[in-house]
């Protein structure tokens, strides 16, 4: 196996270890040995010990969701960075986050009540909002069958600003719901159970797999659009597929955890430092790095101020920004590597 394949395996192993250890953190501390026992043993008894319930019903689904959401955000970030050939792109670059914010806020202020299996009204509204925003941006930006990247980016900025303005207006008009809205906007995995995981997992996994299948096409884009078309790449089709796969992933991740920033921006950079620039490696590595980051961030979110919880989006931004600056600094010393 080559070095980069090995890197992926090590990341996966690391993620598994960190996840299992994380099962022990929280209000009730559980040792690693007991965790393995709980995970391995069969639990048929109608009244299992409380630590079994805590691990199986509270912590495991939440941690798996952290893995999944982190993986989706990391991979979607890598996809958008590849598509825009820009290291500043993230999963929310063409409006998914502000669309989700608007959807969620609308659901909160109107007190709408439409639940889907596994998703409450607000997450469902966020999902629809994210997909709608991206769809609007994409259709506004398309000229004939093509979508010029710059137009896509600018339309994304315009639609985002509009959505954020409406969200601000709604918050102003409904100040009694400010806390609820804020709580959702900052992103959190608190209290998520198996149902959310079951509902969002297929979408996130399908989106990540889709992005991975586009890896070689994204490699060709490295050389610019003219060179990529001379290699037989159909640019319009590629753009549509990347936007579709990344948006499904992002929307499902947002529905599961709210708006969690920085994971999608930072993960691809770390991934490129580890496995080089080929997207066939960058996309899975970004997914694994994103999962790892979000599991750790969520650990901090639920332990640092225990018994109270921090919104995980605040933790990722607090840790992510300085971390990103360090990455930039390292890159200055080492031009050409990563970033």
């Amino acid at each position: 196996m080559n070095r980069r394949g090995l890197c992926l395996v090590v990341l996966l192993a690391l993620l598994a270890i960190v996840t299992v250890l994380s099962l022990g953190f929280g209000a009730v501390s559980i040792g690693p040995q007991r965790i393995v026992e709980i995970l391995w043993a069969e639990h048929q008894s109608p009244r299992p010990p409380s630590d079994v319930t805590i691990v199986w019903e509270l912590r495991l689904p939440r941690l798996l969701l952290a893995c999944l959401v982190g993986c989706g955000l990391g991979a979607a970030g890598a996809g958008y960075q590849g598509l825009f050939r820009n290291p500043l792109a993230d999963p929310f670059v063409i409006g998914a986050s502000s669309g989700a914010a608007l959807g969620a806020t609308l659901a909160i202020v109107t007190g709408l009540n439409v639940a889907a299996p596994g998703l409450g009204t607000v997450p469902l509204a966020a999902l629809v909002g994210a997909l709608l925003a991206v769809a609007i941006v994409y259709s506004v930006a398309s000229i004939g069958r093509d979508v010029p990247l710059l137009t896509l980016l600018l339309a994304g900025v315009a639609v985002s600003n509009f959505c954020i303005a409406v969200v601000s207006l709604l918050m102003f008009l409904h100040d009694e719901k400010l806390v609820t809205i804020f709580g959702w906007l900052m992103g959190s995995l608190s209290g998520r159970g198996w149902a959310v995981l079951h509902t969002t997992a297929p979408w996130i996994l399908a989106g990540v797999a889709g992005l991975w299948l586009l890896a070689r096409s994204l490699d060709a884009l490295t050389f610019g659009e003219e060179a990529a078309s001379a290699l037989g790449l159909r640019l319009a089709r590629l753009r549509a597929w990347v936007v579709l796969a990344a948006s499904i992933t992002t929307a499902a991740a947002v529905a599961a955890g709210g708006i969690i920033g920085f994971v999608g921006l930072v993960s691809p950079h770390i991934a490129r430092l580890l496995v080089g620039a080929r997207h066939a490696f960058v996309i899975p590595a970004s997914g694994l790095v994103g999962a790892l980051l979000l599991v750790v961030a969520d650990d901090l979110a639920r332990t640092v101020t225990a018994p109270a919880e921090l919104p995980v989006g605040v933790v990722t931004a607090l840790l992510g920004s300085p971390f990103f600056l360090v990455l930039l600094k390292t890159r200055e010393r080492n031009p050409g590597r990563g970033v």
Partner: protein
Amino acid sequence: MSSLAAQEVSCGYGDRRVLESLSLAVRAGEVVSLLGPNGAGKTTLLRALARLLRPTHGTVLLDGGDIWHLGAGDLSRSVGLMPQSERRDWPLTVEESVQMGRAPHRGWLLPFNADDARVVDEALRNTALLDLRQRPITELSGGEWRRVILARALAQQARVLLLDEPIGGLDLRFQVEMLRLIRELAIREQLAVVLTLHDLNLAAVYSHRIALLSERTLIACGTPEEVLTAELVGRAFSVPVAVTRHPVYGTPLVVPMGDVPQGGGA
């Protein structure tokens, strides 16, 4: 035998007409150089030949068939393009970049196989890049990067190569080596090559034919001896020139004769 032919092609961007009713054919085994002043439409013609720009009138034929009727894959297996400048936004390695030339053959999903590896090695060897194969492209000099792009076009195994300023940014040694390699490949592999150049004298040495572009069309097309005359070159570039013989190859040697301000120096 493959051939690429522009037939009475007119091109433009918006209202601006760049080429008018231009015809040019290139056959297997020959190198055709496009010469002409800046803005004469050399790159536009290459873009039209590569199907990156749809002519407003006329057609481009590959082996007699309209290139606009071909699938993207068929075209990229037959026609390789080296654009004038290329981006390199991510640090792919030299080898990974050249491998992308195999995408037209292997598709966008299947892993590259031993066949591809052999072709890539060959392309790297031909362009003297074997030692640099693991180097990130973001760390290459401009000249090394030009060679990577040529290697990628070679790995594409296209029968027609369109090269936009293949020696731009190269030092003297690599200018000569690049053109020598291109001509050798054209003859040995029976490739049809169209390239743009600014160096008339290197064009005279390494091309089978020269097409002189000026005033939106070809004002001459033929052997270097036929095209590189004082009259035609002077007219195309609006500068007086003298034409003599290359001391070694006997090809035309074009020397500008513009006014030289005197004085200055130490």
